[in-house]
């Protein structure tokens, strides 16, 4: 510990402004101006960035947990009385459809109301970060909604009405199954096939077969396989070594997302966490990475931006913190690299899952909901 402290004393001039970041996330959780309109359908992901960010900063005490928990539960798409909408269940990103506020069932039938896989994922994460026990989550409905989204090729849609389909939503699905401790939500084998099919000739992963390799999709691929517990089954040692090489070549100062593209704060997490999952993050250059991330820190309003002298946003603010946490920034909580929540929140997940297992004894997981 003393060693770490002296290592960071050298960097006094690029100091980490913890309190500014706490306030940045507090403001994010309150009101955003109209120019943020494009975030409406993804507001739940923004809550996740802010809550997980505050967790990484060990500052969750600044928010009212119960208020947040209630609001998140109001976004759950619950089954109607006759369960006709089961394949559309999960969590919404926001109230934009106009369903009247309610934190309990039964669900309201609406021709266009359905969950979104990324919102179900971040909704569950957010509840767990807040210490909720998921007792009001209709797990079977979430899993039914998830099954309805997987295609023949193993990838997932985001919504049952249809959308683009790719590796991002496999990651969301894997995270959901992992948190609910129930893999009946997806066909793992097909998902693995899609992931393998997305491995590019240059040993990074694209969004799907044939597509350009990219740090974000590489994270989705590797983190999904880790959550499934299938990393070494799906990829040979040689393939893993080649993927390690692709990832480690992304470091220029901070990390870039693709070869010959500029570095961007968020890749300090996407690529950094992937390297951590592959056990070689220790061989990256922490100093240069830290310097870059802090160069994108907004000293006035807090948060981080993708580049220096750019405006901060909740996503880069959160991932910038996660990037710093990976390199062991003092005062930041450690982050679970595959699930992208703090180790503290992860321990809560594990304890919760233990109580589920204890209460059902040897019964099949499928039977309770």
């Amino acid at each position, binding site marked *: 510990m003393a060693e770490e402290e002296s290592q960071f004393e050298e960097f006094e001039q690029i100091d980490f402004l913890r309190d500014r970041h706490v306030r940045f996330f507090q403001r994010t959780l309150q009101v955003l101006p109209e*120019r943020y309109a494009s*975030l409406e359908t993804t507001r739940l992901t923004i809550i996740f960035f802010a809550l997980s960010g505050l967790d990484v900063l060990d500052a969750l005490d600044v928010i009212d947990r119960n208020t947040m928990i209630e609001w998140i539960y109001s976004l759950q798409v619950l089954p109607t009385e006759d369960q006709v909408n089961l394949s559309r269940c999960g969590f919404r990103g926001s109230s934009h459809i106009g369903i009247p506020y309610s934190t309990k069932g039964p669900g309201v039938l609406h021709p266009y109301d359905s969950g979104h896989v990324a919102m179900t994922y971040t909704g569950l994460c957010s509840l767990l970060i807040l210490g909720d026990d998921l007792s009001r989550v209709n797990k079977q409905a979430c899993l039914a909604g998830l099954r309805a989204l997987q295609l023949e090729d193993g990838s997932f849609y985001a*919504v049952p009405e249809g959308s683009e389909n790719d590796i991002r939503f496999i990651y969301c699905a894997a995270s959901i199954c992992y948190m609910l401790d129930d893999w009946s939500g997806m066909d793992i084998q097909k998902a693995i096939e899609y992931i393998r099919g997305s491995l590019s000739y240059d040993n990074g992963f694209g969004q799907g077969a044939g597509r350009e390799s990219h740090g974000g999709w590489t994270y989705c691929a590797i983190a999904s396989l880790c959550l499934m517990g299938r990393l070494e089954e799906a990829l040979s040692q040689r393939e893993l070594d080649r993927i390690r090489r692709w990832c480690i070549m992304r470091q220029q100062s901070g990390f870039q997302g693709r070869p010959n593209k500029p570095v961007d704060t968020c890749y300090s997490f996407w690529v950094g966490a992937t390297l951590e999952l592959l056990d070689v993050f220790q061989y990256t250059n922490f100093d240069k990475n830290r310097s870059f991330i802090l160069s994108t820190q907004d000293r006035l309003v807090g948060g981080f931006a993708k580049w220096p002298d750019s405006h901060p946003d909740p996503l880069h603010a959160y991932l910038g913190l996660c990037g710093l946490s990976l390199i062991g920034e003092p005062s930041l909580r450690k982050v679970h690299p595959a699930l992208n929540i703090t180790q503290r929140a992860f321990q809560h997940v594990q304890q919760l899952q233990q109580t589920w297992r204890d209460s059902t004894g040897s019964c099949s997981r499928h039977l309770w909901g």
Partner: protein
Amino acid sequence: KLAMSGVEEISDESVEVKEGEEFDVEAEDHLRDDFLLDPTRYIFYRDRKEWADLEPVPQDDGPNPVVKIAYSEKFSDVYDYFRALLKNDERSERAFALTSEAIELNAANYTVWHYRRVLLQALSKDLREEMRYITAIIEEQPKNYQVWHHRRMVVEWLNDPSEELEFIADILSQDAKNYHAWQHRQWVIQEYKLWDDELDFVENLLEEDVRNNSAWNQRHFVISHTSGFSDAMEREIQYCLYQIKKAPNNESAWNYLKGILQPLGLSAQPGLLERVLELKQTHCSPYLLAFLFDCYEDALENSKENVAEEEQQKTLKKALEICQLLAQEDTIRKEYWLFLGRSLKNKHGKLNNYTFELCVIHPELEII
């Protein structure tokens, strides 16, 4: 739309704030301008007689909203009526017209786009006109997932990809690495078998910017789906080496070269190692050195039984020298290159450890 908006495209479309603006709550002054100065002034939907039959549906975030967006009166009014239409699943021209306004206010709202598609079909709308519409929107917002998905749906309904390659080329002329554009391009080409001119297209892009990694990827995509790499291998190797000579520090070209040789094994290609060693004299780069390391490693991994141990150890020595060089030249990855060297030595080293420790720590010493 995805939580992981960190990846550049999504972050651009959904999370970035306009440059030059602070993080504060805005006033609704733009609406006042409409009202007082514009002769064809804006009338709220709630004040339009043709909409009087509909009860607007407000957004309901309950008693303690979180991440609430402060919409102007105009914005709320449009979307309150959108929600009303949605609830009744109304299929009408007025509904269709309103989706255009809703899209203009927030083109990332995937429900609006889905509803618009329902209406396009229910009302048998002119899909050619829709193509013109979506073309204009993508030109304005080329990093939005919903607009590209919408275009794909319309192209599928029309079963007409004839405008696509030119349109995508235009988008790429503004941003040659737009991931959505490339993805759409790959879909169109594969779906409608439009391979014929794509290699030329890729070569032109590489002429403009030999470091365009998306173009190199597309090159691989085209060849792997057309001629394949067996007959084309020599030509492709030549192409790579030519581009590397022009721009030696180009990771994309080296990744491509390695990528096409990898399936057969880097050491399987006769004469390649020698060509690269030659290039090392005049066009060296960390990528070249890494490529050499990989060649040596491949040779060690795939050594036939009749390869003498002495030969093996020579190859190992060369590989370790490359690691040392890389640790000096590509300093940001110094620890990684040293790690690779140690791993390789542990795997293939047969001489006593002492000798190799010396080799690694003191590169100027010669192996006896």
